[in-house]
C-alpha cells in the first residue's frame, strides 16, 4: 500500500480541463444539505434509497408472513397484501435500485473515476436529489391517504389500477402517479449530468476504451433510463387523463362492479406496450451498473485484468440496444396479436448471447488470477452464481412457448428476484464494502461482513430457488392465499413457511450490516488512500475521503486502462491509471516468478 503515490505523476496543465467553477459553501447546511458536491449528493441519494428500501423490505416480510402462515395475522387482509405487493415492487425497482445505482453510485463514482472535479451541472444535480426526495415522500404519503396505497401491482395495469375492486383507487394511485412523475423529472436532471459528465468531462488520456466498466455500465444505464422513462411518463399521463378527465386512452367499455363505466374504446394493451417499453429497459437499467461494478470488483480483488474488455463494453452496448426491442416478451399471453410472439421470442433469446459472454468473461477474469477472498469478492462471486441462475431461468420465460405455462406463476417471481433483485443487491453490498474505505476513510469490519454475506447469499437462495418449483406446479402469483386449490399439493405450504422463515432471517441479518456501517464509521481500521491496491482514479486522490473537487491542485492524467493488474515486468502487481509508462518500476526479482 505504501507504494502508492511514489511514482511521479504528470498532471494536466491547470485550466486545460479544469475550468469548472465549484460552489464552496461555508455553512453546515450548505455543505451537507444543500450541497452541490456530487459525493455528498451521492450519499444523500444512498441514504434515502436505503431508507425507503427498508420500508420495502418490511413490506416483503409482511407478504411472506401471510404466505408462510396464512390467516394468522389480522393486520394483513387481501387489500393490504396487494398494497404490499405493489409498493414493494415499485420501491425496490425504481426508488431503491435505480436511485442507488445511478443516483448514489453514479454520483460518487462518475466524476472520480473519469477524473473530473464534479458533475457537469452541479446545481441541477442537487435539484435532482431534492426531486427524488420529494418523490419518495409523496410515495410514502400514499400509505396514509384514505383507501391507502395502490394495490394494482407494480405494473399498474389499467383498467384495474383505476377501477373499483382494487385497493387505493382514490388517493393511492394518484400519489403513485405524482411520485413517479416527480421521480422521472428528477432523474432526467441527474441523468443529463451523468451522461454529459462522461461524454464531456473526462480527464486527459481517459479515452472511451480506458473507462472502467463501472462507468460504462452506469453510463449506458443512464442513457437507457433517459430514453425509457418517457414511456412511463406518457403512460401515466394518459392513465391520469382516463381517470380524471374521462378520456378513453386505455379504458374500454366495461363494468365497475356491475355499474357501466363512461369509457369506450380504449385499449388496455396500449398501456402494456408503453409500460413495458419502459419496463424492460428498466431491468437493464438496474442490471448494467451491477455488471459494470462487479467487473471492477472482480478485477481488483482477483489482481487480474478484466478478460475481454472490448467484448465487455460492446456487450453492454448491445444489451442496451436490444433491450428496447424485447419488451413484448412480458406480454406473450396478454392477448396481443399472437404472431408478435415469434419476433419477440427471437429478439429476447438473442439478448442472452451478450449476457452469457459477460458471465464467461467474469469467470475468465478469475481464471489464472490471484484471488483475494475479501468481502467484496465474496459478494461478487455470489452475484455470479445468482445471476447465472436467474439468467438461465430467463431462457424459460423468454422462449414464448415455455412461457405459456410459467407466466404469472411463482417461476416468474423466482426468476426476476434472482436476476434483478438478489443479484444487483449483492453487487450493491459488494460495492459498499469495496468503496466504503474511500467514502469514509475506514474499513468495514471483515467478520461482520462475512456473516452478512453468508446469511444473505444462502438465505436469498433458499427463498427464491424453491419458487421456481412452485411455478412448475402452476402456483399463480399475487395470490393472497391458496385455500384449497386442488392441483397444489399440501406440501407446498411447508415450503412456503420455510421460505418465509428464510426471508425473516435474511432481513434480520441486514441489521448486522447497518451495525457494521455505523460502528466502522467511528471505530473502523484506518483505510489509507488505496487499501485494495486498485488502479482506478478514485483510489489515487490526494485526500481520503476526497474533498470537494475530488483531486488536488491538478487533475490526474491517464496513461493506461483500469485493469493493469499483474503486468509482466512491473515491480508492483498493479499500475494506477495515472502512472506514466516511464514511472513504472521494473521487476527486479527473480524472472519467471509469475505463474
Amino acid at each position, binding site marked *: 500500500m505504501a507504494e502508492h503515490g511514489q511514482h511521479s505523476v504528470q498532471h494536466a496543465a491547470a485550466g486545460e480541463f479544469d475550468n469548472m467553477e465549484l460552489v464552496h459553501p461555508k455553512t453546515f447546511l450548505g455543505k451537507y444539505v444543500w450541497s452541490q458536491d456530487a459525493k455528498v449528493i451521492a450519499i444523500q441519494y444512498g441514504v434515502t434509497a436505503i431508507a425507503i428500501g427498508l420500508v420495502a423490505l418490511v413490506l416483503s416480510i409482511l407478504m411472506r408472513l401471510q404466505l408462510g402462515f396464512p390467516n394468522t395475522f389480522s393486520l394483513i387482509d387481501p387489500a393490504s397484501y396487494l398494497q404490499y405487493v405493489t409498493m414493494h415492487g415499485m420501491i425496490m425497482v425504481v426508488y431503491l435500485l435505480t436511485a442507488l445505482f445511478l443516483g448514489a453510485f453514479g454520483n460518487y463514482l462518475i466524476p472520480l473515476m473519469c477524473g473530473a472535479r464534479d458533475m*457537469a*451541472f452541479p446545481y441541477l444535480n442537487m435539484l435532482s436529489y431534492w426531486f427524488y426526495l420529494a418523490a419518495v415522500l409523496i410515495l410514502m404519503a400514499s400509505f396514509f391517504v384514505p383507501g391507502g396505497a395502490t394495490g394494482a401491482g407494480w405494473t399498474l395495469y389499467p383498467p384495474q389500477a383505476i377501477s373499483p375492486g382494487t385497493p387505493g383507487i382514490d388517493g393511492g394511485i394518484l400519489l403513485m402517479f405524482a411520485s413517479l412523475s416527480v421521480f422521472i423529472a428528477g432523474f*432526467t436532471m441527474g*441523468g*443529463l449530468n451523468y*451522461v*454529459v459528465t462522461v*461524454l*464531456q*468531462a*473526462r480527464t*486527459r*488520456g481517459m*479515452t*472511451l*476504451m*480506458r473507462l472502467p466498466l463501472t462507468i460504462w455500465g452506469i453510463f449506458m444505464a443512464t*442513457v437507457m433510463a*433517459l*430514453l*425509457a422513462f*418517457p*414511456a412511463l*411518463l*406518457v403512460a401515466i*399521463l*394518459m392513465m391520469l*387523463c382516463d381517470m380524471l*378527465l*374521462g*378520456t*378513453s*386512452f386505455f379504458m374500454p367499455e366495461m363494468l365497475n362492479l356491475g355499474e357501466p363505466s*363512461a369509457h*369506450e*374504446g*380504449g*385499449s388496455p394493451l*396500449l398501456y402494456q*406496450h*408503453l409500460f413495458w*417499453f419502459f419496463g424492460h429497459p428498466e431491468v437493464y437499467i438496474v442490471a448494467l451498473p451491477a455488471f459494470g461494478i462487479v467487473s471492477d470488483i472482480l478485477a481488483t480483488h482477483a489482481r487480474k485484468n478484466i478478460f475481454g*474488455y*472490448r467484448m465487455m463494453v460492446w456487450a453492454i*452496448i448491445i444489451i*442496451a*440496444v436490444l433491450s*428496447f*426491442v424485447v419488451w413484448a416478451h412480458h406480454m406473450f399471453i396478454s392477448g396481443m396479436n399472437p404472431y408478435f410472439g415469434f419476433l419477440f421470442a427471437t429478439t429476447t433469446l438473442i439478448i442472452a448471447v451478450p449476457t452469457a459472454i459477460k458471465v464467461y468473461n467474469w469467470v475468465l477474469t478469475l481464471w489464472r488470477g490471484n484471488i483475494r477472498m475479501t468481502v467484496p469478492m465474496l459478494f461478487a462471486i455470489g452475484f455470479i452464481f445468482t445471476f447465472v441462475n436467474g439468467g438461465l431461468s430467463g431462457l424459460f420465460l423468454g422462449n414464448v412457448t415455455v412461457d405459456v405455462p410459467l407466466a404469472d406463476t411463482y417461476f416468474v417471481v423466482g426468476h426476476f428476484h434472482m436476476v434483478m433483485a438478489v443479484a444487483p443487491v449483492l453487487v450493491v453490498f459488494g460495492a459498499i464494502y469495496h468503496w466504503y474505505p474511500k467514502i469514509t476513510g475506514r474499513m468495514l469490519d471483515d467478520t461482520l461482513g462475512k456473516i452478512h454475506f453468508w446469511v444473505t447469499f444462502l438465505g436469498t437462495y433458499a427463498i427464491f430457488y424453491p419458487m421456481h418449483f412452485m411455478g412448475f406446479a402452476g402456483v399463480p402469483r399475487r395470490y393472497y392465499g391458496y385455500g384449497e386449490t386442488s392441483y397444489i399439493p399440501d406440501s407446498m405450504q411447508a415450503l412456503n413457511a420455510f421460505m418465509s422463515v428464510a426471508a425473516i432471517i435474511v432481513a434480520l441479518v441486514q441489521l448486522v450490516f447497518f451495525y457494521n456501517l455505523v460502528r466502522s464509521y467511528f471505530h473502523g481500521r484506518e483505510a489509507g488512500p488505496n487499501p485494495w491496491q486498485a488502479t482506478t482514479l478514485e483510489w489515487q486522490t490526494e485526500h481520503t475521503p476526497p474533498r470537494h473537487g475530488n483531486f488536488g491542485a491538478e487533475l490526474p*492524467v*491517464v*496513461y*493506461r*486502462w483500469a485493469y*493493469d493488474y499483474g503486468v509482466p515486468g512491473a515491480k508492483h502487481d498493479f*499500475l494506477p491509471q495515472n502512472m*506514466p*509508462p*516511464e514511472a*513504472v518500476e521494473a521487476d527486479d526479482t527473480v524472472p519467471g516468478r509469475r505463474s
Partner: protein
Amino acid sequence: MSMTVSLVFLAVLMAVFGGWLFSHSVGVRPWEAQAAGSGQRQGLGGGQLPAAATAPRVGLAVFLAVATSLFALTVSAYLMRQEMAHDWRPLAVPGLLWWNTACLVLGSVALQLAWQAARRDQLPRLWRGLLVGGGFTIAFILGQALAWWQLQSGGITLAANPANAFFFLLTALHAVHLLGGLFAWSRSLFRLQQGATPAAVRQSVELCALYWHFLLVVWGILFALLLMT
C-alpha cells in the same frame, strides 16, 4: 406496428452513438499504456468531444433526445390507439392552428436573430430579438389555448373521442415544453435587465434558440400528424 416510430428514433440515435464509439474503439488495444499527448488515438483524442461541444450544449443535445423520445412515444401511442380502435373520429383541425404555427415560426426566427446579435455583441438587437421571440411564443401558447376553448365550446370535448383526447394531450405536452423554454428565456431577459453583457447571456440565448427550433420541428411533425389523420 406503430411502435416503429419510437424504434426508428432509437435506432438512429443508437446508430450515431455506436458509430461514434466504434470509430474510437476499432483497432484500439485498450491495455496498451501510452503517454498522454503522444498524438495517437489512444492519447488525447480517443473519444474526447470537440472543444465546441461545451457541457451546456451537450446537455441540451441529451435533453432534446429525451424530449424526442417522449414525443415519439406519444406519437406511437397515437398511431397505435388509432389502429386498435373502431371509435376513432378524426378531428377537424381548427384553422387557428395555422396562425399559431406562423407565430411559432416567427418566434423561432426572432430568437435565432437574438442569438446572432449576442454573438456580435449588439445589445439593442439582442433585446429586440428576445422580446419579439418571447412575444410570439406567448402568442402561440395563447393561440393554442384559444383553439382548445374553441373546440371545447364547439362540443369537441376531451372525453368525447380519442382523437380529441390525443389532440389535447399532444398540444399540452408541447406547450409545457415551451413554457419550460420560456422559463429559461425569462432568466436571460432578467440577467440582461440586471445589466449583463450580450456575451454573458450568449450561451443561454443560444440554448434557447436551439431549443425553440427543436420545438418548432416537433410542432411541425405533430401538426402534420393531426392534419393527415
